[in-house]
């Protein structure tokens, strides 16, 4: 299928209304990566190449950058996002750790939200979790590693996209601890 500029705008509008910092989307032969400017420190320090290439001219305020990689094509098609404040600046600037307990990837691997394709996700935003509850899986060379919540609380944010490669130390989820 084809992804039109309007589709991308629509996706951006949805993301702008959410608290996501990064989105990886695969539809057919398209891969879409959206990354919010000034995202959390962990991802800002390791910009994806498409984000760097798509960097807007200095001084321009942009909500997000979007690039579309047609399969096999090395040069991303860049769609510049609308100039609109994405989320209240205070929310974007607030360090992750103040928002709750961060679940970080203990290894490089593929991030999965469910135990199997088609199975319900371990958690959704808003789910209550116990310290030892599995919240996601990271696959490394066909080995599945269960990732625990690490604290009792409520899932406030899911920062990685199902099926995406996550780096060592990357934020996967934020859990708001319950007293």
């Amino acid at each position, binding site marked *: 299928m084809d992804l039109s500029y309007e589709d991308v705008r629509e996706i951006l509008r949805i993301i702008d209304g959410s608290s996501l910092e990064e989105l990886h989307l695969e539809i057919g032969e398209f891969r879409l990566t959206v990354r919010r400017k000034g995202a959390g420190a962990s991802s800002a320090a390791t910009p994806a190449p498409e984000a760097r290439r798509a960097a807007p001219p200095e001084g321009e305020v942009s909500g997000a950058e979007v690039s579309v990689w047609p399969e096999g094509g*090395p040069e991303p098609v860049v769609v510049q996002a609308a100039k609109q404040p994405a989320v209240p600046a205070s929310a974007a600037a607030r360090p992750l750790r103040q928002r709750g307990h961060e679940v970080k990837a203990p290894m*490089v691997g593929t991030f999965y939200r469910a135990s199997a394709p088609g199975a319900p996700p371990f958690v959704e935003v808003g789910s209550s979790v116990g310290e030892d509850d599995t919240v996601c899986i990271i696959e*490394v*060379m066909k080995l599945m590693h269960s990732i625990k919540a690490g604290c009792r609380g409520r899932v406030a944010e899911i920062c990685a996209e199902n099926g995406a490669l996550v780096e060592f130390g990357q934020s996967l989820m934020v859990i708001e601890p319950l007293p």
Partner: protein
Amino acid sequence: MKRVLVANRGEIAVRVIRACRALGLESVAVYSEPDRGALHTELADRAICVGPARSAESYLNMPAILTAALGTGCDAVHPGYGFLAENPAFAEACAEHGLRFVGPPAHAIRLMGDKLRAREIAAKVGVPVVPGSDGPLASPAQVERVAARIGYPLLLKAAAGGGGRGMRVIRSRSQLAEWFLAASAEAQAAFGDATLYAERFLEGVRHVEVQILADHAGDCVHLGERDCSAQRRHQKVLEEAPSPAVTPALRTQMGEAALALTREIGYESAGTIEFVLEPETGRFYFIEMNTRIQVEHPVTEMLTGVDLVAAQLRIAAREPLGLSQTEIRLRGHALECRINAEAPDEGFRPSPGVVREWAAPAGEGIRVDTHIVPGATVPPFYDSLLAKLIVHAADRAAAIELGRRALGGFRVEGVETTIPFHVRILEHPEFVGGRIHTRWVEDELIPSEGGSAPLPNLPPEIARAKPALGGPR
């Protein structure tokens, strides 16, 4: 081949990424947490954090590196030197996952990694080996029989090889039983294999190695030698080419020996065959083959004009070598100084930290391979190599002179460096006269270290880094 994962850090990662770019290949860097923001991660098209500081969990972590390669759509992996470069299991794992390993086939790595087997193969194709045992030695009595044939001093070595472990110099019969047990226990602990063999221990020799390139179809050339006799504790300090001790006739002989071995094992990619050379007799002996790109490869590049890393990438892409032996010309003289973050006046204590100021020399005949920029951090977890200064001039005297001037052109603040030590070498009449051997740096320049060195008994020709740290080799 379109996208290459560079499974290394430091200057060699930068070097490989630049070669990828020159060939129109995309590159993906990997890094450990303390290397976040390092130059190689900035230069690559993409960078993936693969683990924490400990090499075993990051740069040596095969599942993490393979996952990063596959997850970023790479079709090839360049291992650099150290770390996973000479790990046959890694080369095999790459192949199993459809990734081209930019290096030799796993079987060649495995063959040459077994030092006793390598020696047997060399002998079989008529490459001279250091006189020694014909196979493994099971008891001190067997060592004694070898000694009766070739004489003392003898060098006991571990067949599983490397790092100077499981190695002892035996100067007389009285030491034999004791050192045999010690060496085999050490080999067992270090490699899980107590097998030992023995060689005549040669003294006053030079370390001379031959660079080769071989393609998938079996075409191969040698690119002359490098002289790496300037060593400290089995680590190369400074390398040069051509060797002051090698005549054109000897070069042809050594080159042919190197190519005979290359062909015999079905080698492919860049490789180095190391020899010890007795300068008086011109006799040379095979020590081992390094199945990777080496730290000192730029010396050969400056002399021949052949880009060895680009050649590795092309060979991995199954392109023909496209070079014949008669096309390889050695022009002028090249020298390389390894600039380490170490304090030479304090026993070469490592000096990690933040490089507050960094300016490298530039100009005609001067090349600096480095990953350091002003403000860069030298973490304490890995090798201390900051930069390689390579100079190239019309002849040896001019190259030494250019080297001295270029060393004077460095401005470094924040960490100690070995620059002053290199100036001492380049100003020393015996070095200038081309009269050094593999013990010369330690005997002549740092005699205070001679007695206190932790491994005083080791043979000078063993120039291997601690593999776990992925040090320069």
